[in-house]
C-alpha cells in the first residue's frame, strides 16, 4: 500500500517553502552567540523559516537585565583581539544580527523549564524573545527541517 505525505503548499501556509533552520542555543559564552547571529540572519535572508530555542545559560543573553556573557577560559586572552577584529570588519553584534533575522521572520523561543530553573519569568526576557515554550513545541516547529545545536 502506498502512502502519500501531504505537504502544505506555499499558498496554504503563506510561507515561501524553501526550507527551515532550527537552532538550539544552549551555550552561554559570548563566542557562541556570534554564529547564532550569523546563521539566523543568513538563513532568514535565504527565505528559510528560522526557529531558535534558547535554553541553558544562553538564556542569560536574552534578559532585560543585561548579563555580561563570559568567554570560555581557553579563549579569554583572545577576547579583546576578537572584538577589535569584528569592529574592523564591520561585523554587527550578535543581537543586531538576530534582530535583523527577526525582521525577516525568525522566531525566538525561551525554554520554559530552564527559565524556571534560573528563576526567570516571561517578563524578565527582552523583546528578542517571542514566547516561552516547552521542548515539545520547539520539536514540533523544527520538524522536517535542519536543526543545529550551539
Amino acid at each position, binding site marked *: 500500500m502506498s502512502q502519500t505525505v501531504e505537504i502544505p503548499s506555499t499558498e496554504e501556509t503563506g510561507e*515561501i517553502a*524553501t*526550507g527551515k533552520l532550527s537552532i538550539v542555543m544552549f551555550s552561554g559564552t559570548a563566542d557562541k552567540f556570534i554564529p547564532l547571529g*550569523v546563521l539566523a*540572519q*543568513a538563513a*532568514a*535572508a*535565504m*527565505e*528559510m523559516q528560522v526557529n531558535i530555542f534558547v535554553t541553558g545559560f544562553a538564556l542569560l543573553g536574552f534578559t532585560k537585565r543585561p548579563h555580561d556573557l563570559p568567554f570560555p577560559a581557553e579563549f579569554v586572552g583572545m577576547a579583546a583581539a576578537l572584538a577589535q577584529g569584528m569592529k574592523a*570588519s*564591520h*561585523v*554587527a553584534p550578535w543581537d543586531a*544580527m538576530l534582530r*535583523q533575522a527577526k525582521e*525577516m521572520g525568525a522566531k525566538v523561543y525561551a525554554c520554559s523549564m530552564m527559565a524556571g530553573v534560573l528563576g526567570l519569568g516571561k517578563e524578565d526576557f527582552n523583546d528578542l524573545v517571542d514566547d516561552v515554550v516547552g521542548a515539545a513545541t520547539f520539536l514540533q516547529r523544527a520538524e522536517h527541517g535542519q536543526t543545529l545545536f550551539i
Partner: protein
Amino acid sequence: MGANETMRTIVDSRGSSCPGPITDLAIAYRRAKVGDEIELWATDPGVKPDVRAWAAKTGNEIVSVEDQPDKIVVVRVVKR
C-alpha cells in the same frame, strides 16, 4: 514612469561582512517588483558563492557577476 516599467536598484554593501551583503540583497529583493533589477556591490570575499547559493535556494537567476578593479563584486539579479 509608467506602472509597468521596471526599476533598477543599486545595493551598496561594500565594507559589510557576511551575512551583511546577502541580507541587503534579500531586503532589496523583498521590496522589488517582478522584473526589477537589483545590482549588489560587495567586498566580502564570500559574496560570489553566497549569492549563487541564495539564488539556488530562492529560485532566482544571477544575470551577471563582475569583478571590478577595486575588489568590488557586482552581482545583477532580476526579480522573478
